[in-house]
Structures are given as structure tokens and as C-alpha cells.
């Protein structure tokens, strides 16, 4: 399987809360825009690609079609026997599709989920080890659905010989999984490759694979194809080495590096899982991503999705589009394309408005970098009564409606003043301390805090300090409050959530029950439902200010592993 798979997700349905949905995400043109250094042509290419642009993943969906079962190498984190509908990780699929079925499924999803912008082939084997099936799918789709971006991921072994074909099919996004550039290290990750009609093992195999990967990367870059490199972080095997990998692939022309944590459990039946190889901790992953970020744009929103995932990143609506169901669907794709174009235009208009708003606040703050505070004061309406209209019916925002917020005039000299007069915990005092805090967020999309704590399947983790709010990654959890018989396991699920949120000073959500509230407080994590429907980064900044004023920074170090 290709652990490279690109897909992520985070948000799902667009809520109707456009007016409240100021996107403060890092990709919106703020000073922390990670892709800001790229030429306009490249930014345009990734603008609506949820896996290549962090901001896009709040707005656009993706899908993978599982047409490529064969693989030409073995990785120690992969078990080719695996096939399960409940597991969410690369290489796992529910049903293999023929190219014809894949085309039908893609059209069905594109019609039903108009914000789906990207079709990727990512396995369950290696797409380029199945060139006929993979290319037949791309060929048909570039004819029938010219409005869908095509994307492929590969281990790179067969890449050089297929580069020209890839270019012919308008595939302008490719992900290569590169775990090493040193064959000695490669031999600890890849037990064998199939090459020139022979199975080759050991260092020799790794050397060939690495050569092919590097050659393919350079060829794609020469032809103007955008290349993302995925690397699996394997503690004790390639952790330090990935810094070198990041430098090398950047020099060869990759534009984004995605370091993903190893997934290794004995029940997965993989070599690493069975031999007790551990995956990295959140801190180890972040430290490595930070170390690589000096050389390279880093992707941190990857959800390591399945090879048949459908929907927003982190979301999987694959069950709605099984072979059985799509065979009964009658799709008028011409009509669907019109609707898709309208929906995409709507999304872009909204994003443009958000960028404008972001630029204006930056200007009025006189160069103050702490954008979120200004956004907050500017965006909060003087009349709070307009807020309920902005709230999606599915998600209650009572927490936000119940609280009065006093808009403050911009006060750049003391940006950390607490902003919520109704909050008993907020002290109106500035702090000069700038130790960063991690703050977790429950969001189901559009860049706002709009999810019930107990419904969250993942939390977005941000790191805030007095200067900036930055997204650092996601923590996957089991939703403990599913409202059905599985609620019997609520206690253990909540314990798992608490572990996932370790190191966070607070968790923001639209609503939260009393039981998890108490458990979070006992664990030293401040639960907070006061910022429902607010833009994520704005709310995180406000909560950082509250916590700072409240003296959280003087308490025991919750983030010991953070580098300065």
C-alpha cells in the first residue's frame, strides 16, 4: 500500500454559517501562509486541492478510487492481506473497483458532493504497479469529467518509465512516498522489491528503489508537475534521517513534505506492528516536522486516509457509494458540472472575502502580527442577536448565544487583553510572557468551531503564543457519544480522548457534557464551549489570552517537549 496517500479531511458539510465563518486559517494569506513563497501559478494549482493546501481542506473534498491492487515492493508498515471497512489508514479498502466502476463512482460522488475537487488513485497497492488500470481510469475521467483534478501517489519504483504517460493525462499532482535516501536505512524499511522480473532483497533493493524515486521526482519537477513527498516517521529507524530526506527532496524540486506517523499495531499483521516497533509520539512528530520546516514547506493536516476514502479530509462517506449503490445511480454529469461550478464559485467568493477581511485587519492593526485578536474585535457584531441566524441547524451554538461579548476597539499595544467580559476567568491584564500553549479544537468544517465535544472523531491542535496561532496537527479519537448502544463503552472512549489531548491546555468545542467537562478539568485541560461558531484561529487566540491572563503559564509545564 502506498502510505503516501494524500488525503485528509477535516471538515465536512458546509454549514450555512458563511457569515460567521471567517477563515483565519494559516493558508488564508496571513503572515503564516506556508505556501505564500510559491509562485502564483503553483498556488493556483493547489488552491482547491485539499491535500496540497491546508486552507483548501476546510472547503473542498477529495476521493480515492481503489483500482490498483498490485504492488511491486513490500514495506514493513504494510500488510497486503488487510481488508476492512472499519480501519482508517492507507492501503485498506472495502472493495476493489474496475476502471469502469471507478469512473461511475467518481461521477456519482462528484454529482452528490459538488465540493469534491480531486480524484486520487492511491492503492490499495501501488498505482503505478497497475499502469493499465490506473491509466485507463485517468484517461476516461479526463474525458468525462474535465472539472476534476487528477492525482496519483506512488512508491516511485515504476515512476521514471511512466512520467510521460502521467503528463499526457493531465495529472499535475503526484505524491511519492520517500522514507529514506540511504539504502542501509532503506533495508530496514523495505524487505524486497520486484525489479526486472526478479525479487530483490536487502540493501540492493533499497538502493534501486531510492534511485528510481529520486529520478522520478526530478523528472516530474522538470515537467512542471507538482510533487508532494510523503515520509513515514519510524522512531529509531529514519527519524533523524528524515531531515536529510527533506533537504534532498526539496533540492530535487518537491514543493511540499508530509511527515506522517508510523501506524503499527500487532493486529494489523505488519512487520513493524508484530515486532514491537513503536510509532512516534505527538511531540516527536511535531519536533521532526518543525526541524524539517526550515528547509521545506511541511504538510501537517494529513489524515492518512484509506485508498477508497470519500469526502472531506477526515471524513469517509465511502459507504454511501458502494458498487451496488452506484450501479443504480443515473447521473446527468453535464448538469452536475454546472452545479459544481456554481458551488466552487461560491466557495471561492467566500474565501476571497475572508482573505480581504484578513488583509484589512492586518492593516488596521498597524503591523501587529497578532491577527486573531483584531479579527475578533472586528468580526463580532455589535448586535449579538444576529448570531443565531448564522448557526447551522444541526449544531447547536447555545454556548455562544448565551454569552454576551463586548466588542473591543482595536488596541494593538495590548493585544492580549481578555476579550470576554462575561467570563469570570478572564482577567483584564496583559502579559508579556509568550510561552506557547497547545489548544485543541472540535470542528466539522468551514474553519469554525462547530462540533460537539462528544461527536468529534478528531481534534485539530493549534499552538498559540503572543505572536501567532499555527496549526500543528490532528489527533484522532473515537467519538464517545454516538447516541447508540456503543455508548456503553463511553468511559474507555473518553479515556482515549484524554490521552489524545495530552499536552493541550484547553479544548474548544460548540458544546460539551458535564461528565467529560469534569474529566478534562481533572486532567488539567480546560474545556471551553464559549467560542462556538467562531473562526478557529480567532477563538484560539482569544483563549490563549484568557489562559495567559488567568495564569496558566505559571502552572506546571504541560508541554515539556516543545522546543523554544
Amino acid at each position, binding site marked *: 500500500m502506498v502510505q503516501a496517500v494524500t488525503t485528509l479531511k477535516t471538515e465536512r458539510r458546509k454549514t450555512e454559517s458563511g457569515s460567521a465563518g471567517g477563515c483565519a486559517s494559516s493558508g488564508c494569506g496571513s503572515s503564516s501562509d506556508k505556501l505564500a513563497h510559491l509562485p502564483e501559478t503553483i498556488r493556483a494549482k493547489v488552491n482547491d486541492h485539499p491535500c496540497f493546501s491546508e486552507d483548501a481542506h476546510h472547503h473542498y473534498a477529495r476521493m480515492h478510487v481503489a483500482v490498483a*491492487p*498490485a504492488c511491486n515492493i513490500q514495506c514493513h508498515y504494510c500488510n497486503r*492481506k488487510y481488508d476492512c471497512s472499519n480501519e482508517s489508514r492507507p492501503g485498506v479498502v472495502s472493495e476493489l473497483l474496475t476502471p469502469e466502476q471507478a469512473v461511475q463512482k467518481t461521477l456519482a460522488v462528484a454529482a452528490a458532493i459538488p465540493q469534491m475537487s480531486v480524484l486520487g488513485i492511491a492503492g490499495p497497492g501501488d498505482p503505478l*504497479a497497475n499502469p493499465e488500470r490506473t491509466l485507463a481510469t485517468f484517461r476516461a475521467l479526463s474525458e468525462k469529467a474535465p472539472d476534476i483534478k487528477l492525482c496519483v501517489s506512488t512508491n516511485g519504483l515504476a515512476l521514471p518509465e511512466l512520467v510521460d504517460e502521467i503528463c499526457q493525462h493531465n495529472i499535475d499532482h503526484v505524491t511519492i512516498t520517500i522514507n529514506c535516501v540511504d539504502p542501509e536505512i532503506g533495508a530496514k524499511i523495505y524487505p524486497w522489491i*520486484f525489479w526486472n522480473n526478479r525479487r530483490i532483497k536487502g540493501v540492493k533493493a533499497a538502493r534501486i528503489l531510492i534511485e528510481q524515486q529520486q529520478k522520478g521526482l526530478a523528472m516530474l519537477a522538470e515537467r512542471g508537475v507538482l510533487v508532494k513527498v510523503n515520509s513515514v516517521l519510524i522512531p529509531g529507524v529514519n527519524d533523524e534521517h528524515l531531515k536529510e530526506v527533506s533537504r534532498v527532496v526539496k533540492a530535487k524540486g518537491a514543493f511540499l513534505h508530509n511527515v506522517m506517523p508510523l501506524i503499527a499495531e500487532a493486529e494489523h499483521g505488519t512487520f513493524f506492528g508484530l515486532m514491537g516497533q513503536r510509532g512516534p509520539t505527538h511531540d516527536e512528530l511535531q519536533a521532526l516536522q518543525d526541524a524539517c520546516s526550515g528547509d521545506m514547506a511541511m504538510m501537517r493536516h494529513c489524515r492518512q486516509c484509506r485508498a477508497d476514502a470519500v469526502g472531506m479530509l477526515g471524513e469517509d462517506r465511502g459507504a454511501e457509494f458502494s458498487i451496488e449503490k452506484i450501479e443504480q445511480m443515473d447521473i446527468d454529469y453535464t448538469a452536475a458540472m454546472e452545479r459544481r461550478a456554481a458551488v466552487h464559485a461560491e466557495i471561492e467568493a467566500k474565501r476571497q472575502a475572508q482573505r480581504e477581511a484578513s488583509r484589512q485587519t492586518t492593516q488596521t492593526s498597524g503591523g501587529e502580527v497578532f491577527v486573531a485578536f483584531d479579527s475578533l474585535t472586528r468580526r463580532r457584531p455589535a448586535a449579538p442577536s444576529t448570531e443565531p441566524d448564522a448557526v447551522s441547524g444541526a449544531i447547536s451554538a447555545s454556548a455562544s448565544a448565551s454569552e454576551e461579548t463586548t466588542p473591543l476597539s482595536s488596541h494593538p499595544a495590548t493585544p492580549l487583553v481578555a476579550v470576554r467580559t462575561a467570563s469570570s476567568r478572564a482577567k483584564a491584564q496583559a502579559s508579556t510572557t509568550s510561552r506557547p500553549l497547545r489548544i485543541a479544537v472540535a470542528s466539522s468544517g468551514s474553519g469554525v468551531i462547530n462540533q460537539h465535544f462528544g461527536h468529534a472523531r478528531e481534534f485539530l491542535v493549534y499552538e498559540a503564543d503572543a505572536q501567532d496561532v499555527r496549526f500543528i496537527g490532528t489527533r484522532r479519537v473515537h467519538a464517545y457519544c454516538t447516541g447508540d448502544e456503543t455508548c456503553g463503552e463511553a468511559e474507555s472512549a473518553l479515556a482515549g480522548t484524554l490521552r489524545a489531548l495530552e499536552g493541550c491546555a484547553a479544548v474548544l468545542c460548540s458544546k460539551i457534557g458535564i461528565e467529560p467537562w469534569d474529566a478534562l478539568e481533572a486532567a488539567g485541560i480546560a474545556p471551553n464551549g464559549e467560542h462556538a461558531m467562531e473562526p478557529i484561529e480567532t477563538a484560539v487566540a482569544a483563549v490563549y489570552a484568557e489562559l495567559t491572563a488567568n495564569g496558566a503559564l505559571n502552572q506546571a509545564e504541560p508541554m515539556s517537549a516543545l522546543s523554544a
Partner: protein
Amino acid sequence: MAYQITDGCVNCWACEPLCPSHAIQAAKPHFIIDPSQCSECAGDFAEPQCASICPIEGAILDASGIPVNPPGSLTGIPPERWNTAMAEIRAR
């Protein structure tokens, strides 16, 4: 003489396009080798192609019924480790 595919096969298609004799066919519940077609790649390749790309230990047997890729030979997982882990998981 012919090779043979067992029920360990995961239907990944890797072997099918490689067979110089077109002896391999997709079938339910798993792929099969037509024994009348299989040449064991004699005259075409030094090594039997299906067994050289197959990722599943024990899925392909040679003419005498012996696994070409015995347990541990492809994944590097010692068979005893595999058996212990599977027993632990089943006992949960």
C-alpha cells in the same frame, strides 16, 4: 508440471500480467493457474514470475506442493512471532 495458487491469495492481480504463458486467471474465491498452460516460466525467465512478485507467504506452491515463499521469507516476521501474536489477539 505446474505452479498452484492457494487460498492464501488476496486477489491483488500482481501476478496476472506477468505470466508469460497467460496461465493465470482471476477467479472466485481466488486467482487460479491453469495447469495445462503453466510452464513454470521455463525458457522465459530464470525465476517463476508469479512467485517472484506474490506478496503473500504460502500463496504459491511449486509442482511438488511446497510453498515457494515459506512463512517469514517475505515479511521477515518469524513464524513463531506471528503465531504467538495471532494467539494473543484471538484470546482477547
